[in-house]
């Protein structure tokens, strides 16, 4: 079902984890649909992404696209990172099954959400960046289920 690259990024995800005091953090997706992605960006004063980490709740494709997205934006300028589209993530992974294309969209949105957070924190405007859809609301408060 998955390409070798997807399987590789799923089994050995790059940049998985958390950045303490990140410059920007973005969380997208919805637990209801089974995918949540969180991206952490560490951006220096020259607006270059020094580090990028992710955490993902989701299927194999969701993990692989998050992992690939972090690789693609690391070391890039903000403007360059904005050009990392879902298509670019998919191509870098040698494609995804049709039902999993939304995972790559989520990866793009997660980067945008983290950049938006960075722009808000620093009171700057990033050319071409739209306010991300905050889609994550349901199912977060059910901690007393067990």
């Amino acid at each position, binding site marked *: 079902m998955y390409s070798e690259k997807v399987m590789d990024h799923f089994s050995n995800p790059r940049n*998985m984890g958390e950045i303490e005091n990140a410059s920007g953090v973005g969380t997208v997706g919805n637990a209801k*649909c089974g995918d949540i992605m969180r991206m952490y960006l560490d951006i220096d004063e020259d607006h270059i992404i020094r580090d990028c980490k992710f955490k*993902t*709740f989701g299927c*194999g494709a969701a993990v692989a696209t998050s992992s690939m997205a972090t690789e693609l934006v690391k070391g890039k300028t903000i403007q360059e990172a904005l050009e990392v589209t879902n298509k670019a993530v998919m191509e870098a992974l040698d494609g995804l099954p049709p039902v*999993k294309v939304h995972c790559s969209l989520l990866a793009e949105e997660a980067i945008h959400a983290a950049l938006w957070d960075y722009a808000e924190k620093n009171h700057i405007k990033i050319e071409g960046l739209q306010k991300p859809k905050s889609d994550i609301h349901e199912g977060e408060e059910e901690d007393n289920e067990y």
Partner: protein
Amino acid sequence: MGKTIYLDNAATTKTAPEVVEAMLPYFTQYYGNPSSIYTAGAEAKKAVNHAREKIAQTLSAAPDEIYFTAGGSEADNWAIKATAESYASKGKHIITSTIEHHAVLHTCQYLEKHGFDVTYIEVDENGIVKLDALEAAIRPDTILISVMFANNEIGTIQPIKEIGEIAKKHGVLFHTDAVQAYGQLPIHVDEYHIDMLSASGHKLNGPKGIGFLYIRKGVKSRSFVHGGQQERGRRAGTENVPGIVGMAAAAERAYAQLKEKTKKESELREYLITRIEKEIPYCRLNGDRKRRLPNNVNFSFRFIEGESLLIMLDMKGICASSGSACTSGSLDPSHVLLAIGLPHEIAHGSLRLTVSEENTIEEMDDVVDAVKGIVERLREMSPLYEDFVKAEKKKS
């Protein structure tokens, strides 16, 4: 690749060698058409009749109440559609449950588009159909109640006898999808007041592509497949003789070994449940603890998603299944897990392990160790778990 541990026996089972052995002569030796007059055909016909008798015995039914089909889904389709058509003049109301297999649910939805009214009875948190709601749903125009014998995902066994009694009391026909139960549980059609019952060969170490529908004598049912006079004119088409022979051999084998098989499987099941509950935090056993198929284990693990878990298990040679959306090709997780009240994200993190009598305790140990490690790893990766841990820290 090391060895494989197969824990998906609710999906399908290994065809037993003795079943294959019984089938083989009917491919190359007695390949005649059972409808033909010469000896080769007569041999085939004899085998079909014999198989019908053997299967009837397992249900305490009569041979001419057994109709062979291409499997469980066909039997479900037949039972519901043909009954609906045959009894439409009496009424157009059908009662079923929210946790049926799609072969029943989608057939009911199809009938809804064709003028029938369907009531879907809810289940409790363990997946047991609410009997009072079921009885209350019966109307003068109710023609059929269809409730599965045991659930394929969470293994819950329904109070079939009670449902049969309710149906009988109100003069409504009762169909049960016994695809998971047949060969795993003793079934007596008269005692349980079952009018129709669906079963499938490949769930009990028989071949794929064969099943049957039991139809009680006197129940009206129009022809499901039109054509020749096979299956007493109700289901045309040259009989799948090797399949029928294999189905009967599998049924005979399953019921002859039922006691030992149940004992072995429930021991493995209990071992899995006990170890998982003890060793993996934030998990939940889905389905009823007691009224449960001997081979079924179904857990939800919070903060993780099922497909990831399955892929990682597959890498370790473990075959399992999940009710996560990603494994169904839709955005919604299993309708059964939602029906027992699980929130979506917990339903996404479910794992079904269905054992066979061939599995060993050592294999169960390997599986629990694997699941434990994978769940830990996926939680490390999960933003939901991160939020949970942070919220817990704040509390304390």
